[in-house]
C-alpha cells in the first residue's frame, strides 16, 4: 500500500492540541475520546469495587460508615452501568470501526456524533457533582427504587438527572449508527456482506433509540415527584411503587442487550480472524442479534418475581425468559463450531474471546436459576445475583471490550502492545474474577443479601475469599490497562493488517488516514473469506 496521506492522529484542522480532539468531528478521534473517558470511569469504578470489598473483610463497623458503603455501591453501579458498560463498545469501538468496516468516510452525522460525546461528558460531570453537593451522594443503588428514592434526602434528584442526560448520548449514537449503516455502505457491501460486529451495532442501535426514551420518562417522573410532590409512585400519596419497577425494567432489561450484543459482535469478528476460517452460521448469528433485540423487550418483569405480581404474570415472564435465552445459547454453539477444523492461533484477542465464551457461558447458565421461579425466589436480591450479573456484564461485555481493545488497538494507534504482559494480566484476571464472583454466588445461594454493609458470621469465610479475589482481579485489570499506556510510548510499529484479518478496516493503513480509505473500496465477497490461510 502506498499511503502518503497523513494519519488521523496527525492534526489537520486549524485547531491546536486538545481542542483539535475535543472539537473534532472525525469518527476516529471521537472514538478515541470515548475510549479514554470510558476507561477512566471504568478504572474509578473498579477502585470503588475494591474499596467495598475491603470493608467486607469484616462484619460490623469498620473502615467507614454504613452510609459510605451505601453511597459506594450506588456510585459504583451508576458508573459501571451508565458510564462504562452501556456506552462501552458501541461508543468507543463502534465509532472508530463501524465506518471503516462498511467502507465509509465517516458516520452519517459527524456533528451529532461529537455532540453525543459532549452530552456524555456533561452527564458524567453532573453525576460527579451529585456526589459532592447537596445532602451527600445518592444511596439508593443504581436502580433508584421508589419509594425509598423519593424519601431519602441524599442527592438523588441530580443523579437521576445525570442518568437522564446520559440517555440522550446513547440515543444520538444509536440514531447515527442506523442511518450510517443504511446509507453509507460502500459499493458491493450488501447486508449479508457486513461484518457481524456491524450487525450487532445495528441491532443494538435499535434498542438504544426505542428503549432509552422510556428510561428518560421514568427518571423525569422520579424527579417531578421529588420536586413537585406528585403522587405517581409513592403509595403515601396514592401512587404505585410497582409502576416504577415496571417502567424501570422495561428499559433496563433491553439495556442488558445493549450491553451484551456489541460484545457478541466483537467475538464474532475475532474468532474467524484467529481461526482463519469463515464463521459458522453467519446468518443465524446476524438474525439472532435482531431477534434478541426485539424479544428482549418481553421479559422485563423477571426482575420482579418477588414483588407480588400475580402468579400468572410470574409464570408467563418465566416462560418467556427461558425462550429468550435460546438465541444466545445458539450463538455460543456457532462460535465453537467455527473452531472445528480451524487453524487456531491464540493471540491475545483470541485469548480474551475464549475467556468471554467461558465466563459468559457461566453467566448465562447461572441465569437459568434466576429464570426458574422457585429458585429465583431464593436468590433474588442476594449475592448470587451480584455474582451472576458480574459474570454476564464484566465476564461477558467487559471481556468483549478487552478483546476489542486488544484486536483494534494496533489499528487505532499503529502500535503493538507487549503480548507477554497481556498474558500475565490475563492469568490474574481469570483467577481473581472466578475467586471473587463465584464465591459471591455461593454465599448468595446460602442467603447472603446484597447491598449489606455488615453480615452474620456464617458468611465470613466467603467474604474473605471474595475480597482476596478482588485484589488479584484488580491487579490484573490495571496491569492490562498499563500495557496499553506503555505501548503508546514504546510499542513496536505494526503494518496495516497485523492479524491477517479479512474485514475492511484492515485494508487501510494503521492508523488510518483521516478520510479512511484512499479510494473507496468495492466489496466482492463475504466478510470472513480466507484463501490458502490468508484473506481472500
Amino acid at each position, binding site marked *: 500500500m502506498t499511503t502518503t496521506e497523513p494519519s488521523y492522529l496527525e492534526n489537520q484542522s486549524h485547531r491546536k492540541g486538545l481542542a483539535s480532539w475535543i472539537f473534532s468531528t472525525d469518527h476516529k478521534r471521537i472514538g478515541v475520546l470515548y475510549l479514554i473517558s470510558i476507561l477512566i470511569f471504568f478504572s474509578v469504578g473498579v477502585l470503588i469495587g475494591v474499596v467495598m470489598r475491603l470493608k467486607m473483610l469484616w462484619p*460490623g463497623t469498620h473502615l467507614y460508615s454504613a452510609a459510605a458503603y*451505601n453511597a459506594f455501591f450506588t456510585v459504583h453501579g451508576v458508573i459501571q452501568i451508565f458510564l462504562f458498560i452501556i456506552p462501552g463498545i458501541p461508543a468507543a469501538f463502534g465509532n472508530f470501526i463501524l465506518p471503516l468496516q462498511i467502507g465509509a468516510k465517516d458516520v452519517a452525522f459527524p456533528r451529532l456524533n461529537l455532540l453525543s460525546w459532549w452530552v456524555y461528558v456533561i452527564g458524567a460531570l453532573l453525576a460527579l457533582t451529585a456526589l459532592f453537593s447537596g445532602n451527600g451522594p445518592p444511596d439508593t443503588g443504581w436502580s433508584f427504587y421508589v419509594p425509598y428514592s423519593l424519601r431519602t434526602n441524599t442527592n438523588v434528584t441530580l443523579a437521576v438527572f445525570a442518568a437522564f442526560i446520559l440517555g440522550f448520548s446513547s440515543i444520538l449514537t444509536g440514531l447515527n449508527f442506523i442511518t450510517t449503516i443504511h446509507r453509507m455502505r460502500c459499493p458491493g457491501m450488501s447486508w449479508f456482506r457486513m461484518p457481524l460486529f456491524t450487525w450487532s451495532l445495528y441491532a443494538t442501535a435499535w434498542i438504544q433509540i426505542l428503549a432509552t426514551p422510556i428510561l428518560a420518562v421514568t427518571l423525569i417522573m422520579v424527579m417531578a415527584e421529588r420536586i413537585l410532590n406528585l403522587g405517581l409512585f409513592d403509595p403515601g400519596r396514592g401512587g404505585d411503587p*410497582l409502576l416504577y419497577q415496571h417502567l424501570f425494567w422495561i428499559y433496563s432489561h433491553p439495556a442488558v442487550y445493549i450491553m451484551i450484543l456489541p460484545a457478541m459482535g466483537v467475538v464474532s469478528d475475532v474468532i474467524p480472524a484467529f481461526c482463519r476460517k469463515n464463521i459458522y452460521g453467519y446468518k443465524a448469528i446476524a438474525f439472532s442479534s435482531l431477534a434478541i433485540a426485539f424479544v428482549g423487550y418481553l421479559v422485563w418483569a423477571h426482575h420482579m418475581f418477588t414483588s*407480588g405480581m400475580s402468579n400468572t404474570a410470574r409464570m408467563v415472564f418465566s416462560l418467556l425468559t427461558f425462550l429468550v435465552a435460546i438465541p444466545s445459547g*445458539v450463538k455460543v454453539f456457532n462460535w465453537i463450531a467455527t473452531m472445528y477444523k480451524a487453524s487456531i492461533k491464540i493471540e491475545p484477542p483470541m485469548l480474551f474471546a475464549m475467556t468471554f465464551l467461558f465466563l459468559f457461558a457461566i453467566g448465562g447458565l447461572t441465569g437459568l436459576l434466576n429464570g*426458574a421461579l*422457585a429458585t429465583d425466589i431464593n436468590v433474588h436480591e442476594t449475592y448470587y445475583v451480584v455474582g451472576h450479573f458480574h459474570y454476564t456484564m464484566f465476564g461477558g461485555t467487559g471481556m468483549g471490550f478487552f478483546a476489542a481493545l486488544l484486536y483494534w488497538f494496533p489499528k487505532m494507534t499503529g502500535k503493538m502492545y507487549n503480548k507477554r504482559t497481556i498474558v500475565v494480566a490475563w492469568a490474574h484476571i481469570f483467577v481473581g474474577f472466578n475467586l471473587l464472583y463465584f464465591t459471591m454466588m455461593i454465599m448468595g445461594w446460602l442467603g447472603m*443479601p446484597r447491598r449489606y454493609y455488615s453480615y452474620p458470621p456464617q458468611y465470613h469465610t466467603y467474604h474473605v475469599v471474595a475480597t482476596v479475589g478482588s485484589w488479584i482481579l484488580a491487579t490484573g485489570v490495571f496491569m492490562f490497562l498499563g500495557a496499553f499506556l506503555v505501548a503508546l510510548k514504546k510499542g513496536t510499529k505494526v503494518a496495516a493488517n497485523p492479524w491477517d484479518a479479512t474485514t475492511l478496516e484492515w485494508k487501510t493503513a494503521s492508523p488510518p488516514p483521516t478520510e479512511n480509505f484512499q479510494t473507496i473500496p468495492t466489496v466482492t465477497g463475504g466478510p470472513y473469506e480466507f484463501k490458502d490461510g490468508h484473506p481472500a
Partner: protein
Amino acid sequence: MNRAYANTTVAVDSVFWFIAGASALLLLLVTGLMVFFAIKYHRSRHPQAQETYESTLLEITWTLIPTALVMVMFWYGYRAFLTMRNVPADALTVKVTGMMWKWGFEYPNGKKTEVLFVPLNKPVRLNLKSVDVIHGFYIPAFRLKEDVVPGKDNYLWFQPQGMGAADIYCSQFCGLKHAYMMSRVEVLSEADFTAWYTSTNTTVAGTLNLSALPGIPLMQSKGCLICHRLDGTRGTGPSLLGIFGRTETVIENGKEKSVVVDDAYLRRALKEPSAEIVKGYADVMPPVPNLTEQDLETIVATLKQLK
C-alpha cells in the same frame, strides 16, 4: 442446635439441584469442546483450516435440544413455585410488619413479638405489610422471600419440618440500617408452641423469650446481634447467653488474666471494647455509637437476664 427447615426448602432444593446439575454439564460440554478444538486445531498442528459446511440439521438439533431442556427447567420451577403460593385453608395467619429497620409479628390472638415463633408441621401464612418503604422478607433456610410493599397485600406461607432457629433478613435495600434489619424464626414443637401461644406469660420452655426483654430490640438496633448470638454458639463474638458471672480469660495490654464477668466488666466491654479482649477472639468489636447511660443500663440489665 438443629437447623430449621420447611416444605419449601425441600421443594426449591430439588429444582436447584436439577438446574445446577444440568448447567454444570452444559458448561463442561461447551468449555471442553472449546479447549479441545483450541488444542487439536492449533496452528502448529493444523496449519491449514478446512472449510466446514453448514448443516441445517445440526443447527435445528442444537436449537431444539436446549429448548426442550429449558422448558423442563421452566416447568419444574413453576411447579415448585405453585407449591409456594397455594396456602392451605387451615394455616395459622401471622401479620408481619416491616419498618425501617425491624420486623414485627402479630398473632391472631393479639400476641406481638419481634421473633417469629411457629409450630412444627403446621402451615403458617404470613401477611406482609410495610409502614414505610419496600422491604424484602427473606428466610434463607426456608428458601422463601417476598417483597413487603407499602400499600400492597403480599403474602407467603410455609410448613416447618425441622425444629430450631433460622435467620430472617431484609432483602430489599431500605436505607441506612438495611443490613441490620434482621430477626429470627423459631420452630417449636407443637406442645411448646401451644403453651407459649396460650399463656399470658411469654416464656417458652427451652427458648429464651427475647421479645420480653427490653434490651433485645435495643441490641438489635445497635447491631450487637450480628456478631453475638444468644444461643450459646460462637459467632464473630462470644455468645452472650449466660455471660453474667462466667469466668473468662481476657487479654489486657498483651497480658492474659482471668476475670469473672460482673457489672463493671460489662460496662467496660461496651465502652472500651478494645481494652480487654476475650481470648480466642479478634479485636473487632466497634465502640457502640451514641451509647447513652440509659442504653448502657438497659443492655447490662438484659445481659444479666440471659441465663
